[in-house]
C-alpha cells in the first residue's frame, strides 16, 4: 500500500518534472554563438567573415597600390585557406571538441599559454581594426570618432552582456552584404579582362618592404587565426559527425571559393578605378570611390553602410569568441550571463578587448587605413603558431584515427606555414633594415 502511494507520488513528480523540462528545453533552444553561422553552413559564413573592415581595407589597398599584380596570390591562397579550414572542420567533427580544448589537452599548459597569447594578440588586433572600421564608417556620415566609437563600444558591450546581441546581429549581417556591390562595380568598371587573366596566373614577387607588407596583410586577413577557431567551434556546435562530415567538407570549399571570389572582385574594382588614376587608399572615402561605377554619388554612403555593418558584427563576436577560447583552454568559468564575480576572467577579457579596440580607434591623428593593414599583418605573423598547432593535432593518430591528414594536405599546410613564416621574417627584416635587398 505504502509502496503504491510512493509510486503514484513518483509518477506525479515525473509529470511535473517533464512539464518543467519541456518549458526549459523550449527556452534553452536559444541560438548559441555559432548557430547563426550554421544555418548557412559553417564553411560559407566563416570564410565570408574575412570580409570585415581589415579585409576590405587590405584588398582595396592591394588593388589601388599594385593594380592587378597581386591577383596571382589568390589561387594559392584559395588552396591554403580551404585546406586549413577543412582541417579544423574535420577536427571538430572527429573529436567533438574546440580547437582551444584540443590544444590544452594535447600540448599542456605552456604551449597552450603561447598559442592563446598569440590568439589574444591577433584577435585583439582584429578587434582594434573593427573599431577603426566603425570610426571610418561613421566619419563618412560626418560623425566624429570621439562620439561614434565610445557609443558603439558601450552598445556592443551592453548588447552582448544583456544577451540581445543576436537580434541586432542579423541587421549588421544584412548591412555588410553591401560589399557584394564590389562584384557589380568591378563588372561596370570594364577592367581589361585579358590583363586580369594573365596576372591571375603570372606570379610577381618583389622584395620591397611595401610589397612584403601588403603580401603578409593579404595572407593574414584571409587566413586569420580566429577563423580556424570559429569553424571548428561551429562544426562542434552543429553536432557534425565523421559519418556526415562529407557535406561539411563541401561547405568549407564552397565557402572558401566564394570568399576568394569576392576578394577577386574587390581587387579588380579598385584596380580599375583607383589604380589607373594613381590614387591610393589612405582613407575610407577613397576606398569607397571604387564603388562609383555602381553607385555614383552614393558610393560613400553605400560603402559606409557596409563597413559599419561588417565592423559592428565582428566587433562583438571577436572579443566574445576570444574570451571563450581562452576560458575554454584554461578552464575558467565562462558565459555572458554570468556575473563578474562568477566569471571574472571571461568577462574581463571580453571587456578588455572591447575597451582596447575602442581606445586605440579613438587615438587622435590615427591613420585609420594604415592601422587596418597593420592589424592584418599581425594576424599574418602570428598565423604560423596556430598552423603548427593545427598540423600537430590533425596528424595525431590517437586523436584523429583514420581521419589524419593525407600527404597532400600536410604538404599544402606545411608550405603555407613555412611561406608565411618566411614572408613575415623577410618583412620584419626589410622594415628594420630598409636597404637589406637594395641593389
Amino acid at each position, binding site marked *: 500500500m505504502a509502496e503504491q502511494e510512493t509510486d503514484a507520488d513518483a509518477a506525479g513528480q515525473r509529470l511535473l518534472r517533464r512539464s518543467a523540462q519541456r518549458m526549459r528545453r523550449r527556452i534553452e533552444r536559444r541560438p548559441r554563438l555559432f548557430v547563426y553561422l550554421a544555418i548557412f553552413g559553417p564553411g560559407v559564413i566563416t570564410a565570408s567573415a574575412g570580409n570585415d573592415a581589415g579585409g576590405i581595407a587590405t584588398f582595396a589597398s592591394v588593388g589601388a597600390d599594385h593594380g592587378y599584380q597581386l591577383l596571382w596570390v589568390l589561387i594559392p591562397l584559395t588552396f591554403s585557406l580551404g585546406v586549413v579550414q577543412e582541417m579544423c572542420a574535420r577536427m571538430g567533427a572527429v573529436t567533438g571538441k574546440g580547437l582551444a580544448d584540443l590544444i590544452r589537452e594535447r600540448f599542456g599548459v605552456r604551449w597552450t599559454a603561447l598559442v592563446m597569447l598569440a590568439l589574444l594578440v591577433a584577435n585583439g588586433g582584429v578587434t582594434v581594426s573593427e573599431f577603426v572600421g566603425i570610426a571610418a564608417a561613421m566619419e563618412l556620415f560626418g560623425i566624429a570618432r570621439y562620439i561614434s566609437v565610445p557609443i558603439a563600444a558601450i552598445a556592443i558591450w551592453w548588447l552582448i552582456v544583456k544577451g540581445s546581441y543576436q537580434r541586432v546581429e542579423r541587421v549588421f549581417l544584412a548591412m555588410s552584404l553591401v560589399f557584394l556591390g564590389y562584384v557589380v562595380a568591378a563588372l561596370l568598371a570594364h577592367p581589361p579582362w585579358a590583363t586580369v587573366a594573365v596576372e591571375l596566373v603570372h606570379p610577381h614577387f618583389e622584395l620591397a618592404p611595401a610589397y612584403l607588407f601588403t603580401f603578409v596583410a593579404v595572407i593574414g586577413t584571409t587566413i586569420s587565426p580566429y577563423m580556424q577557431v570559429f569553424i571548428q567551434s561551429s562544426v562542434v556546435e552543429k553536432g557534425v559527425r565523421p559519418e556526415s562530415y562529407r557535406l561539411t567538407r563541401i561547405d568549407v570549399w564552397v565557402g572558401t571559393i566564394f570568399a576568394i571570389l569576392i576578394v577577386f572582385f574587390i581587387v579588380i574594382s579598385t584596380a580599375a578605378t583607383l589604380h589607373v588614376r594613381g590614387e591610393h587608399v589612405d582613407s575610407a572615402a577613397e576606398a569607397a570611390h571604387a564603388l562609383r561605377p555602381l553607385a555614383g554619388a552614393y558610393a560613400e554612403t553605400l560603402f559606409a553602410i557596409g563597413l559599419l555593418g561588417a565592423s559592428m558584427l565582428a566587433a562583438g563576436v571577436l572579443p*566574445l569568441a576570444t574570451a571563450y577560447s581562452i576560458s575554454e583552454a584554461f578552464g575558467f568559468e565562462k558565459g555572458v550571463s554570468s556575473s563578474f564575480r562568477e566569471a571574472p576572467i571571461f568577462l574581463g577579457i571580453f571587456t578588455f578587448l572591447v575597451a582596447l579596440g575602442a581606445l586605440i580607434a579613438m587615438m587622435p591623428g590615427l591613420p585609420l587605413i594604415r592601422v587596418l593593414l597593420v592589424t592584418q599583418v599581425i594576424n599574418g605573423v602570428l598565423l604560423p603558431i596556430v598552423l603548427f598547432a593545427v598540423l600537430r593535432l590533425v596528424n595525431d593518430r590517437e586523436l584523429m584515427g583514420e581521419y589524419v591528414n593525407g600527404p597532400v594536405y600536410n604538404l599544402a599546410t606545411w608550405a603555407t606555414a613555412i611561406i608565411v613564416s618566411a614572408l613575415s621574417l623577410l618583412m620584419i627584416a626589410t622594415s628594420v633594415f630598409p636597404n637589406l635587398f637594395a641593389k
Partner: protein
Amino acid sequence: MLYLSQVLGRPILDLEGERVATLKDVIVRLGEDDHPPVAGFVARYRRRDFFLPRWRITDFGEAGVRLNSDILDLRPFVRRDGEVLLARDVLDKQLIDVDGKRVVRVNDVQLIEAANEWRVTGADVSLIGLWRRLAPAFLRSGRPVEVIDWADVGYLATDAATVQLKSSRGKLARLHPVEIARLAESLSYQHGAEIVEALDDETAAETLEEMAAERQAQILGDMDEERAADILEHMSPDEAADVLGDLPVEKAEDLLNRMEDEEQSEVAELLPYADDTAGGLMTTEFVAVPRDLTVGDALARLREMAETPNMIYYLYVVENEVSEKLVGVIALRSLILSDPSSPLEIVMRSDLQVAHPDDAAADVAQKIAEYNLLALPVVDEAGEILGIVTVDDAIEILLPKDWRQRLPKLIG
C-alpha cells in the same frame, strides 16, 4: 602532500643516486576507494616507456623517485584494465565535479601520503595550480588552492574512459537527470554518450529525455543495440517514439524489435503519427477503468496497477473491459472525495473534451490551455481512446516563438 606537476619529468634514481630514467607518468587504479592508491609509475628511458611497480620505490617526492634495488626490470609499459595514467588521462582534461555540479579542467593533481601509501586526493582546478605549471619555481605561490575532492569526481573526460564507468555510475547518480544532461551536453559528443552509457537504464532514460532531440537520437543510434532498446523501454512512450522517429528507418526498426513486447507495442502505436498532430504528441500511458465499477473499485484498481502512468490525475472511463470506447472522465480529486460505494457512472463527467489523432498539435494545445486541462484524450472514429496529450507537451507548443528572445540568454 605533492602535486603531480612537481614530480613529472623528475629523475628516477638507483641505490647510488644515479639517474637511470625519467618519471613520465603516475599510474593509479580506480576502484572502490574514494581516493585511489598509486599503483606504479611509467618510467622513460631512451625514448621507451617502462612499467615500475609501486613496491620497487622507496622515496617519492619532488627530488624524484628512488629505486629500492639495482635491478631494473625493463618490461615495456602496457596499460591494464582499470588503470588511469594521471598525466595522460587526467592532467589538462575535463572532469565532472559532482559536488559543484559542473565541468572543470584539471590544472594539477594532488597526491597525499598516508599509511605508507600515496593516494590521489584531489584535482586542482585553481589559477594557482595553473601558475604552478607555468611559472619558474621561485615565483610560485604557497597559497592554499581550490581542490576538488577526488571522491566528488564523477566522470573523467578521457579517452581511457572504459576504466571508470563503474565508479562513475554511483557518483553521477547523486545528480538529478536534468543536471547530468546539462553536464553531458557541455562535453564532447563522445564523452556525453559515455556518460549516458554509464548510467543505469532508468537514469539514462530520464537523462536522455532532458537532452536535445538530435542528441538523443545520436547517442542511442551509436549505442549497443540491446542497451539502447533497454533504455528506450524506460523512456515514456511518446519520447521514445520521438527519438525513433529521428533515427534512420532500419535502425529504428531494429531497436523497436529488440524492445520488450509491452513497451514495444506502446511505442509502435505512436510511431505512425506525424509530429505536429495530436497523435504525434500523445502518450499511451494513461489510466482507463470500465464504467461498471464503483469508486472504491476504481481506487483499488489504481493501487494495483503494476506501473502507474505519469498521468493519474484523470481516470478515463470506458465502456467495458474489452471495449476502449470512451464514455467519461473522473478527476482523481473527485474520486477521492466521493463515496466509495457509488458507481463511477454517477461521479464521472461525460461532457468531456477530446481530440482526434489527425488534429493539429497547435489546436490540441490551445484546447488544453482553454479548458485548463492537465491532459486531453485522443479518440479514434469509433470513439475508442488511443492515448492522451499531457499538459507538458502543450506547454512546449504554446510558448510564444519569441519567448526565448525575451529571456536573458547565453551565447555559446
